[in-house]
Structures are given as C-alpha cells and as structure tokens.
C-alpha cells in the first residue's frame, strides 16, 4: 500500500498500469494458454472488429496490451519526451485498441514509415510523436495482407510490411491536412485521416483483387465483463487518487478544465495541470462505466478499447461537460434502434456510445442541445463509414466524426454568429 502511495506520489502511473496488466495476465491464465492465445492474436487478420478476448483469451489479451504499452513507454523514455495530454491520450488509446486490433507485429512497420517521413522532412522523429501514437489505428492493413488474403507468406509479408511503411510515411502529411476539414472539432483527427487511406485500400483490394472484406467473423467475447469492469473501476480510482494525493485542493482547478471547449489541440495537462487532468481521466472512466451499465452494454474487447480511449482523452479534450451531451445523443439512437429496425443494437452501436466523444468539442463550443444532436448524427453515420473504409481503420468513429464535425460545425457557427450580431445590435 505504501509502495502504491509512493508510486502515485511520484506520478509513475503509466509504468504501474503496465505492471498491473502484466500481472493480471498471469493471474487469469497459465503460461502455455497465454503463449497459444498470443500466437492466435498475432496471426489474426485484425480487421474491425477482431476481439482479442475471443481470439486469444483474457490472459493473452492483457499480455498483448501490456507489451505494446511497455514498448511505447520505453520509446517515449528513449526520446526524452515529457508527459503531455496528447501523449497520455495516445498511450491509453494504444492500450485500448490492443484489446481489438493492435499487436506488436502490425504496428512496427507503421512506426518505421513515420520515422522515414521524419528523415525526409529533416525533423526529429519525436516531433511526430502525436501522429506516431495514434498511427497504429490502421494496423489491420498489415495483418490483413499477411494473414487475411490467403497469399503465401513470401508475398504477404513484404506486401503487408510495405503497406504499413507506406501508410506511416504518408500519414503525417494527410493528418495535418485533414484537420482543417473539421476545424479541430474531431478529436480523433488521425482516425479520420486513416479512414480516407483505408477507403483507398478497401477500393484497391475489392476492385483490383476481388477480395470480400466483410467475410471475417466479427465475434466478440463478453465472458470477462465483470473482470474488466472491476479493472476499469480500479484504474479510475487510481487516477482520481493520484490527483488528490499530489494536490488535496485539486478540485479548485476543475472549473478551468471544464471551461475548455476541448477543441484540438487542448492539452489539459499543459493548460490545467497534471493532477486535475488525472482526476478528469478517472471521472471519464466512471462516466463510461455508468453509461454502459445504464444501457446494459456488456464489456468485450471493443468496449474496453472504447473505455480506455475515453479515459485517455480525459487529458486531451474530453471532460464531463462536453462529453455527456454527445453520449446522450448517441444513447437515444442506441435505445431507439431495436424499436425502429427490429434488430438488437450490435457492438458497433455499443462502442459508438463511447467513441461518440470524438465530437465532444462540438458540445463544448455550441452547448448541450447541439451537442446531443451531434451525438445522434454521429451514431447514425458510423455503420456507413465502416462499410466505406473496409474495417482497416480501427478508429472508424474518428472517420465518422470527421464528417459529422465538417457538416455540423459550419452550420452551428453560422447560427451562433447570427445570434451574436443580434445581441450586439440590441
């Protein structure tokens, strides 16, 4: 207990989370089960939605999450980067998506591609760290070309690796460019950039090579709901406790953080301080738990990915004031969908209730009611963007959110500006 207190006091949360996940992996499964499950994860095509809990089991999945986190933490240390909001969000997003799509095998070529981009631009690799940490959302393209095409490995491995490197090489330029499309109101901007790239890959693979991209089974496992719910509560508690341990009066800083619109690039650690950002991260975890409990959503790999991503962005744009309205908007369609369509709401809609917070800055800027509307529009759009991009972009909600923000923000700005003029004239 004293060691935990010291770790929190020293702000060593991320290495501690790695240790917790790594230890839990071996608590739930034995070594041989983890090894077999991990091999299954590495050989999976990993396209949306490949639930590693179903493919490899809980122990292997936690091992996958822990190892990817470790590699990224070590990379950050080697680059001598200090913790910032985007870096924190990037790490937790990586952890989240390591439950359903990211593994060590399919992420490395993309990192290497960004390294080549940095060399080409004659800029330090670490200046691309934000893109690096979010880049692996498109990692299924690597796994698909190697394990999903049926090609022999001597073709599949070079093709997958080359696609990963090419993606990494082009991604910084594309993500910088598309941010203007939605004016920074989509927090998953790199997900949007990757959606566009994925759309191209999907078109090439279906049109030129005749692949059916939706042939893969999208089975999820809800068998570990209780364990993952407890894990989320523990993590949320750790983050909240760390804020209070380091500053007992930390809540005094919360109004400043809540007052932010959350629009890119809102680094809460820089703007409001690290301790209150960690409290906010924990609060966002609790809000996620509340949402899935009320909506009776069972936790599988994808839902867990959503929860960790929402928590991570608690340091980079999301807070209760801007997130709850859009989550409410998405929840309306989640509840109405079975009545309207006659089919049970699937996992895609379940995770959209969490990932809808990509458009949280819309609520932060334009208020609760327009935020609810944006959340509703988002969840209606996500199934269509999934079909466009073929499942290669794990951040499908980021892809959808780019369109939602680009469509709604100009209209909302127009309406707000008109109101301001009227107020000024009065």
């Amino acid at each position, binding site marked *: 207990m004293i060691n935990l207190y010291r770790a929190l006091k020293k702000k060593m949360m991320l290495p501690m989370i790695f240790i917790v996940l790594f230890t839990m992996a071996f608590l739930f499964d034995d070594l041989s089960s983890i090894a077999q499950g991990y091999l299954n994860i590495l050989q999976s095509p990993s396209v949306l939605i490949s639930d590693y809990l179903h493919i490899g089991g809980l122990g292997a999945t936690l091992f996958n999450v822990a190892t990817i986190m470790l590699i990224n933490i070590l990379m950050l240390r080697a680059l001598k980067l200090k913790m*910032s909001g*985007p870096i924190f969000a990037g790490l937790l997003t990586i952890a989240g998506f390591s439950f359903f799509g990211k593994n060590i095998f399919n992420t490395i070529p993309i990192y290497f591609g960004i390294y080549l981009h940095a060399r080409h*631009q*004659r*800029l*330090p690799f*670490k*200046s*691309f*760290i*934000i*893109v690096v940490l979010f880049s692996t959302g498109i990692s299924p393209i690597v796994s698909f070309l190697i394990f999903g095409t049926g090609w022999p490995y001597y073709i599949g491995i070079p093709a997958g690796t080359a696609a990963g490197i090419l993606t990494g090489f082009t991604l*910084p330029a594309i*993500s*910088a*460019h598309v*941010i*203007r499309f939605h*004016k*920074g109101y989509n927090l998953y901007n790199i997900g949007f950039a990757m959606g566009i790239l994925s759309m191209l890959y999907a078109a090439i693979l279906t049109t030129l090579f005749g692949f059916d991209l939706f042939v893969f089974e999208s089975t999820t496992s809800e068998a570990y709901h209780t364990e993952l719910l407890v894990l989320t509560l523990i993590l949320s508690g750790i983050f909240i406790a760390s804020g209070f341990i380091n500053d007992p009066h930390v809540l005094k800083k919360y109004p400043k953080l809540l007052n*932010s*619109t959350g*629009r*890119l*690039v*809102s680094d809460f650690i*820089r703007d409001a301080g690290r301790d209150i950002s960690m409290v906010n991260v924990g609060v966002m975890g609790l809000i996620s738990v509340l949402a899935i409990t009320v909506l009776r959503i069972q936790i599988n790999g994808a839902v867990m990915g959503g929860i960790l991503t929402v928590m991570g962005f608690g340091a980079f744009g999301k807070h209760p004031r801007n997130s709850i309205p859009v989550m409410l908007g998405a929840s309306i369609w989640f509840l109405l969908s079975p009545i309207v369509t006659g089919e049970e709401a699937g996992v895609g809609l379940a995770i959209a209730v969490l990932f809808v917070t990509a458009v949280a800055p819309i609520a932060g*800027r334009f208020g609760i009611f327009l935020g609810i509307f944006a959340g509703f529009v988002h969840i209606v759009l996500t199934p269509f963007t999934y079909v466009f991009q073929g499942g290669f972009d794990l951040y499908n909600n980021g892809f959808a959110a780019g369109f939602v923000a680009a469509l709604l923000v100009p209209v909302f*700005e127009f309406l707000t500006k008109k109101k301001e003029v009227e107020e000024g004239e009065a």
Partner: protein
Amino acid sequence: MNNQEVKIISKIIRELSHYVMIHGYKNYTLETRIEEKVTYFKLSIQNPSKAMLEKMKEKVSRERELEVETYGWELIGDIDEKTELEILGLLIDEMVIEKKEDMTHITLIRESRYKE
C-alpha cells in the same frame, strides 16, 4: 527558407491580424522581419485594452512545443473567442511588450528549427 516554415509564418500573420480585428481594433500595424534563423512579428496598437494584453501574455508566453509543428499548426488562423491564440502560443519562442506613449508594441519571436 524551408517551405514548412514559410507556411507557419504566414499562418501566424493571419492569426495575429484576425485576433486584433475580432477584438475591435481597426488601426494597427503588423510588421514582419524574417532573418536567416529568426522571424520577428511586431504588432503596434494604440491603447490596447488591458484584458486583451493579459490574454496575449497568458496564451503566448507558453513554452514552445515541437509536436505542434507537425500536428495542429494548420488550425491557427481559424479561431473563435475561446480558442484564439491557443496554438499560436505553442509556435512562438518569446514575447516582448514595450509601451511608448499611447502606442504598445508587441514583438513575437520565432526561431526556425528546420534544416535547409
């Protein structure tokens, strides 16, 4: 000069002009001096409000962040009342404010870190 540096300098000029205008100042000058490794932006305004200057001090005196040079800088120049100068502050190394009679001169200094 590196093409990326040219784009960022142009955006900074746009954001500064936008910032001054949306605060209601119609009479100002903005000089830009580009040297080999440093760019100076000198904004001269007659009797600027204290609130506007304080806001500039708060937002622009932040530590420069190299990550923003590759992600987010494209958003500067497109601002609203809540997000103005948020990103610009991360692209500037130093700010100097001088007052001469009723004129206030605000100089922003940016070092180029791009290799030719």
